[in-house]
């Protein structure tokens, strides 16, 4: 009890110092239409000059009732909907959903499907981190990285397009495996991409990692300790940058991640700069995983034996995966019919966004922008 109390106590608002010149406390409404709130996040800032006294997030502008929709669609029909939540990491969402239902049905996707899933999911992680890097740098004022990362993300999207016809909301996986066999030359395309991409990471780093202004803008900004992260439920690269070596791919391996050899990059200070380094390092690790997967990809069927009409037995399952943004969980309750009785999505962005207030207090307005960027939120997932 005492420990949790202390976790709360420094979340309380300190009494602000009496401002100079009796200036009124300034309340600024940032968003929902604001260039740096990544969609329709609305942040109400209380400022003393430029210093943030506190902030409140107002969300829900993009609420589409995904969970309600899930209750009115069959298991198969709901699959494309999950792509629309975190639309920059649609493949990860699909993987989480398919694996949850597979768990409910007690089937397992065949090995070949598992390998293709891992390749596509890790490519998706790279794409998501690229998009994050570009927009984050843009928020801090560096416009050029955005174009570099988008140029390279295009190559990933091309692979998706060749594989399943869609680029963003791919609907790549089916319950029980894959619908499509990989196209001829898929492996070669992936290998070509990896060879193309590794030097590009160095290019991003060259632009930013040692850039004095970048370091000054991000180091010691939005610090959050590992303890606070856990207390607030923050996961993903944000947690790892705070020094907690925890990744669901290692902690509770799903798909066939246990077959691959990769490291979990962690940071020390839990500041924006560390989160940047962690994400860049994660891109390299993803490349490592894909390299191994593409070499070891076995032949065989791509679809497990799944009935045409999916009717799981009565029961409930919680399953979570390591999405690019953190722990993405699905809690599905089945009542034995063809439609899920309840689908609950545990969105990483939603929970991570809670830490914004803690990370921004006492910082400057410009830091709020940096911190919103570094949390890597997607409003489609926050609001669902």
């Amino acid at each position, binding site marked *: 009890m005492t420990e949790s109390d202390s976790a709360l106590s420094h979340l309380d608002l300190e009494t602000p110092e009496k401002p100079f010149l009796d200036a009124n406390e*300034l309340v*600024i409404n940032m968003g929902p239409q*604001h*260039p*740096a709130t990544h969609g329709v996040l609305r942040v109400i800032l209380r400022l003393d000059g*430029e210093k943030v006294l506190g902030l409140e997030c107002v969300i829900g502008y993009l609420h589409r009732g995904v969970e309600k929709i899930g209750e009115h669609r069959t298991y198969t029909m709901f699959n494309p909907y999950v792509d629309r939540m975190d639309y920059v990491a649609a493949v990860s969402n699909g993987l989480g959903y398919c694996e949850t239902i597979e768990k409910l049905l007690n089937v397992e996707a065949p090995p070949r499907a598992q390998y293709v899933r891992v390749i596509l999911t890790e490519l998706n992680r790279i794409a998501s981190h690229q998009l994050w890097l570009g927009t984050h*740098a*843009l*928020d*801090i*004022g*560096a*416009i*050029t990285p*955005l*174009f*570099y990362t988008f*140029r390279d993300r295009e190559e990933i999207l091309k692979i998706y397009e060749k594989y399943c016809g869609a680029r963003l909301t791919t609907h790549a996986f089916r319950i029980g495996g894959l619908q499509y066999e990989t196209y001829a030359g898929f492996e070669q395309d992936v290998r070509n991409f990896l060879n193309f991409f590794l030097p590009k990471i160095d290019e991003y780093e060259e*632009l*930013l990692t040692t*850039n004095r*202004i*970048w370091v*000054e*803008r991000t180091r010691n900004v939005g610090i959050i300790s590992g303890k606070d992260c856990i207390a607030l439920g923050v996961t993903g690269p944000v947690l790892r940058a705070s020094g907690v070596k925890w990744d669901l791919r290692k902690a509770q391996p799903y798909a066939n991640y246990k077959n691959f050899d990769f490291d979990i990059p962690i940071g020390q200070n839990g500041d924006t700069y560390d989160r940047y380094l962690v994400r860049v390092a994660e891109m390299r690790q993803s490349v490592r995983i894909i390299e191994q997967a593409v070499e070891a990809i076995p032949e065989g069927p791509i679809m497990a034996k799944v009935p045409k009409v999916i009717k799981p037995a009565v029961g409930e399952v919680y399953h979570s995966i390591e999405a690019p943004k953190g722990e993405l969980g699905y809690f599905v309750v089945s009542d034995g019919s063809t439609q899920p009785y309840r689908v609950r999505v545990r969105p990483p962005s939603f929970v991570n966004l809670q830490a914004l207030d803690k990370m921004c207090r006492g910082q*400057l*307005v*410009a*830091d709020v*922008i940096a911190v919103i960027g570094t949390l890597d939120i997607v409003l489609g997932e926050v609001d669902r």
Partner: protein
Amino acid sequence: MNSIVQYIQSYLASDKTPGAAGNMFWALVYIMLVFVGLSVAVIAMNWLERKILAHMQVRLGPMRVGPHGLLQPIADAIKLLLKEDIIPAEADGLIFWMAPFIVVLAAFTVFVVVPFGPTHAITDMNIGILFMLGVSSLSVLGIVMAGWASNSHYPLIGALRSSAQMVSYEVAMGLAVVSAILMTSLNATGTGTLSMIGIVQAQQAQGEWFIFKFFPLGLIAFFIFAVAMVAETNRAPFDLAEAESELTAGFHTEYSGFRWSLFFLAEYSAMIAVSSIAVTLWLGGWLRPFPNLLSGGIWELVFSFFPGVTFLFFAAICFYNTVRMPKHPLFRIQTIGLAAFGVVLALIGLVLFIPAVSMRVQDIFWFATKVAAFMYLYIWYRGTFPRYRFDQLMQMGWKVLLPMGLGVLILTASVALLQQKLWHP
């Protein structure tokens, strides 16, 4: 009639600026020339910035309006002029209306004393550099007025930021300028000058650009100025006042259409203005490279070819791209347009080979080239750097640049005094 012609012709033989010679007619002509030249420069700068930035960022930039988007700035200008001019209901109408004019006025007035050549300035003032700094500091007023009159939070914060920033960096900038002015006093009489033309002439007389004077003191002063001038014009990486990711657009958030374009115009002409101060003070103004070392008839001739050759080079680029244009009926007009542009450039280049013209215009060419290098630097910064945070900006201004400026000033003064004592014991 005759006397008027004589009045007009009399100036051509003079070696003074029209203002100093007291020739109203030529002063007016020069004002018109500067105004038109500046407007063209801003338009060209608009295109160049988008194009250069685009190529730095692996994209093409404007390509649709005219060949390689050459007519894009004109299209933009028409769009801006035709846009609805919105004055927010709660705004302070009069001040809101006045602010952009003050900014533009301040940005353009400074060009009265900019020396494009020994005779190519509207006038030469005894307090030239002081006048430039003073008038350009007035543009802060316009920004503050714009931010306040909009009656909205983002512009207000933007205005407070930019005025605090400009006032702070003016101090460091002033110290750097003073150390350059000290260098002008190293002559037989021992008195320096504030006149822009006088400063360049001092560099000519001493046979050294001030950037290399008392190495590395001149270089450091120049560096301070080069940083401060970017902050002074609110450009990346010091563009906090209009940081679009934080304050949407800073002080001109509520402005639209023509008024907004005035701010735009002022921003670019202010960039040109501070760059010309830097060029005048440290990079020898209108002087061509190595005026003393490589002097003599042949070298004079060689350097007089430069303006023409440059224009011919640009024309050649145009022709090369004309040939590379897609051979498609839809591109015919664009191809012809590009070729015509190349022909215009080539003709200008050929005219510049006429000795009489080239002698008269050379100074302007060298001055403009140096200023253009600064403009490129501005774009380069924007493509490379993230944005500073406000407190870091202030820290840099007050804790780094100001002490450095003071140190350089004291050292320059000591060295200059020492040298004078050695000269006149």
